[in-house]
């Protein structure tokens, strides 16, 4: 599913319940949400939509193959900062994330207050 908004947060992930929870959370913070629940949805959005309807991306890499790193790199190229959400603490994930342009890596479960501060920070980084 792809939702289009002028400016919002792109949330990427395969677990639908996670996606719903994240969407509700971000909307409560006052931001629009764009969702990519599958790899194909994300590919379509990254390769065919211009400009991307998001200023910031939350990417839960759980369940994706290595292609996700390529798409993270693409998001970085089009000036959408990426926050990688990792299923666990992993040096390898951190290395791959930063090498593909991620601005930050956080491990699950996320603490709501910390995530809120992080999102606010990214969304207002150029003010």
């Amino acid at each position: 599913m792809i939702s289009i908004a002028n400016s919002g947060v792109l949330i990427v992930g395969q677990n639908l319940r996670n996606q719903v929870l994240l969407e509700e959370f971000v909307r409560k913070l006052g931001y629009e949400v764009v969702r990519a629940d599958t790899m194909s949805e994300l590919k379509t959005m990254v390769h065919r939509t211009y400009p991307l309807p998001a200023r910031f991306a939350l990417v839960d890499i759980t369940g994706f193959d290595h292609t996700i790193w390529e798409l993270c790199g693409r998001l970085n190229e089009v000036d959408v900062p990426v926050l990688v959400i990792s299923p666990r603490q992993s040096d390898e994930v951190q290395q791959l994330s930063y090498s593909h342009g991620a601005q930050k890596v956080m491990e699950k479960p996320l603490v709501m207050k910390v995530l809120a501060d992080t999102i606010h920070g990214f969304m207002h980084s150029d003010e």
Partner: protein
Amino acid sequence: MANLGRKPDSKGPQSYESISLTSNIYKTYNFLTPHCLYHRLGEHLMEHIATERLSTGVSGLDTILQGGLLPGRSYLLRGGPGTGKTTLGMQFLMAGVRLGESVLFISLEESEKSLRQNAETIGSDVKGIEFLDMSPDSDYFTQVQSYDIFSPSEVEREPVANTITEVVSRLNPIRVFLDPLTQLRYLSNDNFQFRKQVLSFLRFLTQKGATVVVTTEASAGSGDDDIQFMTDGIINLGFNDQGRSVAISKFRGSGFQGRSHTMTLDRGGVSVFPRLAPDSYGIDFSFDVLSSGLSELDSLLHGGIERGTVTFLSGPTGVGKTSLGCKFMQSAASRGERSVLFALEEEPGIMIERCEAIGIAAKAMIEAGTLNIIKIEPLKYSPDEFAQIVRHEVETNHTRIVMIDSVSGYRLSMQGQDLVRHLHSLTKYLQNMGVAVILAVETSQLTGDFRVTDYDISYLADNLIFLRYLEIDGLLRKAIGVLKKRLTDFEKTLREFKITETGIVIGQPLANLRGILTGTPRWKGPEK
């Protein structure tokens, strides 16, 4: 008959009335099954529960709690899987429904549908109970419902609290049962948060006027010590070698009967059989002398046995202990008094025929209500259950003589427990109630060294009558004598004892025999 703590129309154990209608033998001999007796006793007790207490729905548990739960407080029902926590919670709520109270079952684990089905299997009608089903549905285990992006405490605590608050505010329940509280632990970040949340939650419910019972699932990895400190009372359910048990370990603002008590869980639900506390019972009575109806035996006893005393009928198997005990009962029946014989070994039908064969009109006595013979299967009943049956006979049916036949059978029902302690409690209770107690005490040796009992219980006896086999001139004969009588003097001689077609015959003192207690006496002087 409304079973204790159960719906009046529940399909519990057969009632006395239904047994009378459906079973000829019960109709003829006025037998009551022990469970039926107990449930009648429970009904009786329920009427006397103080109004300022809330019945748990289980009369035996109310007894242990000295009348029931104190309202507006919180109680912890703890125990491992299968100990009966949820069933007991249901009975607690149903007791409220019967009083027209608003009651609420908050389930965090089991679905409402499953709870209703389980209630049906034990014959409980849960109509009137409001369910707040917060258990996870089957979709939770698919990707659609499961999540890991945030911790459950961050996602679910607020909705859970909001839902409970909304329902409680709407229903204003008098009784709340929450099963299990330990689920809320997963909605807290740490133990400190959990403790604060539980305290706040319990306070919210009790300030709303509810009496709250919560369950916990304690395990080695996750204890419930903190919750034990937070609640006003703790009811522990468990298993021991003898079966299910219940024990109270805390009850703020009230006393309670300590120790472990027998609990059963069957199709009728939970039943609790409080351990007998003899000092709690007593009536004013006089130590009237009760004749045996046999002048020779009365001579041996200087009149008979007294009310409120314990009499041992000691002797080897087949010597005539039961028949002798029945003579006292026959005599009591002639005075219009009721006796009960608890048959722990023999079948009541055989006992009755044996009585009839020696001139004791047992059938007529049973029909007149002056005798009841209750078959007790020793391995089926715990000492606490047996004590409740005895109490019912004494307190409800006004039984004046109780015979336990035999101590060996009673010992079997101990299943390894302390025979002396339980028998002491039971006989002391009966004594306090002015009941004459007759214990058939079997000795293992037919002849030879004299022993009163094979167990260390002789101190319990106020009166000790013994029967012996004798071998005289190659013939097997019997003798009877009295060894002890606390309240009066007694005849120190031995007499010959016979059971004939016309009844029990006791002869004159065996004055010329010596060495009777050896089992092989010899004549002194001319043979008589």
